[in-house]
């Protein structure tokens, strides 16, 4: 199902915030938040609601708290229980060690088979678009899940502006590789930088979100600030965080977990309760905040929107 979203050209230029004003606002918000946090008694460590900037004027979509069919996972769990090995392998390492990470200024290099390669700032990429709120189920390969109100732009809208050429069949993404800012990278848990990729049609699917926020505010550092993907019908590790590079390729790009353990993590990694994983049964999942495991839905419940892309493909072979 195609969802109508405003194109870049639909946005009146008067609606676009000039960068200088944007920066001023951010600075103001930060200062205000710090002052506010000082007043708040017993504020928690890490990024809290108080010190992240609110994202205004979010467009409502049909993926909302009502249609998702489950309660939202509490903010403290969404931001306090993370897999982000760039900041350590423990679930609470990211909130602890990403605290001082500075996600601005941020640049993304675009290269490969497209007509508009180059280096774009966060503002170049994000500001021309209207931000949408989308409540998605999020399923980790470790058999736990969450329900998260993300904020972002359909990745397809960004890709259209970058104009991939006819030869481009895949999009590859890379996370920042900077052990000084990301202490988890000082050890080779994985081959850094973290790499992920999608087939171009998967990237263009209306569900795929170029994500800049959650719970109505800018992405906390531990959730992949300032820009990450959210691909809700795939296991969480496909939703790459803190993106610094986007490349259009003709061949299927290498992806980090597949490089680490090809038997365990396929390129597609679609959520599929019927395809066994050597480490975890994928038949059931524990939604964070609940005690009993519940059955996992085919393609994480997004079958209607994405199954057509895999028609005729052996999901067991292409796991």
């Amino acid at each position, binding site marked *: 199902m195609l969802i109508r979203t405003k194109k870049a050209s639909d946005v009146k230029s008067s609606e676009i915030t000039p960068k200088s004003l944007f920066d001023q606002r951010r600075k103001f918000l930060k200062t205000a938040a710090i002052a506010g946090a000082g007043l708040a008694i017993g504020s928690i460590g890490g990024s809290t609601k108080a010190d992240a900037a609110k994202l205004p004027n979010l467009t409502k979509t049909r993926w909302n708290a009502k249609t998702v069919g489950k309660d939202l996972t509490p903010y*403290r*769990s969404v931001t*306090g*229980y993370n897999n982000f*090995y760039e900041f350590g*392998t423990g*679930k*609470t390492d990211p909130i602890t060690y990403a605290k001082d990470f500075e996600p601005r200024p941020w640049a993304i290099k675009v290269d490969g088979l497209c007509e508009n390669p180059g280096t774009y700032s966060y503002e170049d990429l994000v500001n021309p678009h209207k931000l949408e709120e989308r409540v998605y189920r999020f399923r980790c390969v470790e058999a*736990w899940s969450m329900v998260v109100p993300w904020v972002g732009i359909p990745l397809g809208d960004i890709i259209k502006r970058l104009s991939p050429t006819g030869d481009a069949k895949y999009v590859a993404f890379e996370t920042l590789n900077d052990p000084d800012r990301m202490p988890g990278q000082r*050890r*080779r*848990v*994985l081959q850094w930088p973290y790499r992920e990729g999608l087939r171009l049609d998967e990237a263009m699917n209306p569900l795929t979100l170029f994500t800049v926020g959650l719970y109505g505010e800018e992405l906390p550092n531990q959730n992949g600030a300032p820009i990450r993907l959210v691909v809700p019908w795939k296991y969480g590790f496909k939703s790459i965080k803190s993106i610094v590079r986007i490349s259009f390729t003709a061949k299927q790009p290498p992806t980090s*977990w597949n490089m*680490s*353990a090809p038997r365990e993590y396929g390129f597609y990694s679609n959520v599929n309760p019927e395809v*066994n994983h*050597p*480490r*975890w*049964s994928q*038949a*059931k999942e*524990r939604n*964070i*905040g609940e*005690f*009993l*495991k519940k059955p996992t839905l085919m393609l994480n419940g997004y079958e209607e929107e994405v199954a057509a892309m895999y028609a005729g493909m052996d999901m067991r072979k292409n796991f």
Partner: protein
Amino acid sequence: MAVSESWTAALATPIIRPMSANTLIRRVLKPIIWGLSLAPAVWLCWLGWQVLHGNPDTLGANPVEYLNRYLGDWALRFLLIALSVTPLRILTGWAQIIRFRRLLGLFAFFYVALHLASYIGVDQFFDWLAIWQDIVKRTYITIGMAAFVLLTVLAATSTKGMIKRLGGKRWNGLHKTVYAAGLLGCIHFFMMRKGVQLEPIIYGGILLALFAVRGFNGLRRR
């Protein structure tokens, strides 16, 4: 005051008979080891109590995972502690240390059993089919179960009566398999973690060091 005077008097009284090594082990050191060995379990109970009394986040966002990992961590630690008794005897020459070995081994089994119980009763909530499939299909769980079965046999044959019944030589041979249990435990941990992580490597390194002490000693005695 009268009370403090009587205390000072008591302290001033010289101890006539120094404690024998036997009494020291039985009356002082063993209770200390009991206390220390139970401390992780007691601490877990305290955390659990807090979860039920107004602090639901004490065990993090995923308390089930926390519980299972915590017990697994302590199971492996106690297994390594029990395995280090003999190397410590070799290194220090303190023969009596061997008297703590069974106690520590049984505590390792205690935490292994709790770790397994939390997997069956809390994580899988007695979904026997899922548990069976895990044991058969997921290698790290197969390995963990093998270690558990082995340790059960060793715990069951840890009494003096069983030593007599089996005979010292056979009993010794059987209980040498604890090395295998240690190895299986470390592999289980390494495989459970994703990517190449530091913690399982440290545990594996400790196990290798313990093996090395025994190995060198064995060569020297030949």
